[in-house]
């Protein structure tokens, strides 16, 4: 087994990304889909930090990682607000039922 390097982290991130993708495309509950999105964002962030450490040897990748976390927090807040609004209108967070613009 080769010593742990950049490729190991990249493969781990790819697997996390695939798991997040499964959650996004199969789950019917909107909150669970959001959890899948968070998983995908984390996979991308691991790639940023791994490249920053092994290729760039600089802190720019980590700064981008911080920005990614901040924007993910803002996105999660707005997305959950939308989910709650959806629940008030439709009395359900099943994405299959959210197919109407009518009140």
């Amino acid at each position, binding site marked *: 087994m080769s*010593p742990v390097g950049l490729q190991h982290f990249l493969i*781990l991130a790819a697997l996390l990304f695939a798991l997040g993708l499964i959650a996004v495309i199969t789950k019917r*509950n909107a909150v669970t889909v959001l959890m899948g999105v968070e998983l995908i964002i*984390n996979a991308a962030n*691991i790639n940023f930090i791994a490249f920053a450490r092994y290729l760039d040897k600089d802190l720019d990748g*980590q700064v981008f*990682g911080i920005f990614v976390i901040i924007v993910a*927090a803002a996105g*999660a807040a707005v997305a959950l607000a939308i*989910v709650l609004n959806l629940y008030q209108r439709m009395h359900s967070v099943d994405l299959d039922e959210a197919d109407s613009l009518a009140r």
Partner: protein
Amino acid sequence: MTTFDVMFYLFAAWTLSSAAIMVFARNIIYNAIGLLFTLIGVAGLYVMLGADFLAATQMLIYVGGILVLLLFGVMLSQRFTGLEMRTDTLRLWPALLVCAGVAAIMIRLIMSNSWSVSTAPEMAPTVKNLGLLLMTDYLIPFEIVSVLLLAALVGAAFIARREAR
């Protein structure tokens, strides 16, 4: 196998198994708890990559903030009639096939590319340099992100509020 390798495989197994629980569990609370442990595992991986400040940020914002927000979302969007808190999956097997294909392609690409990697530098504290970067090279994005956070705060409060009837 050095200690670093052992730690990596431990954290990798931890992260992937809890991510699998998050994806495949049927109970939505189990999903959230699986995500919690995944995020903690990712913070551990950040530490292994020498990103100490980022690991702390991950714990504070993701585990302390976003996950609590998601749990609020779960609790506020379920009808507690009985103990039914399931999340159905839709067409699981085709999705598994597609995602396995995507993962296989990515892993093949990663393995076939010869990254011009030299040995990683010594781990050093990053907080001071990160702060300097944020206040010099990345000052504009830093300010824009603060405005974005304000907009998200106001927007979320506006969207989620109950409409007066």
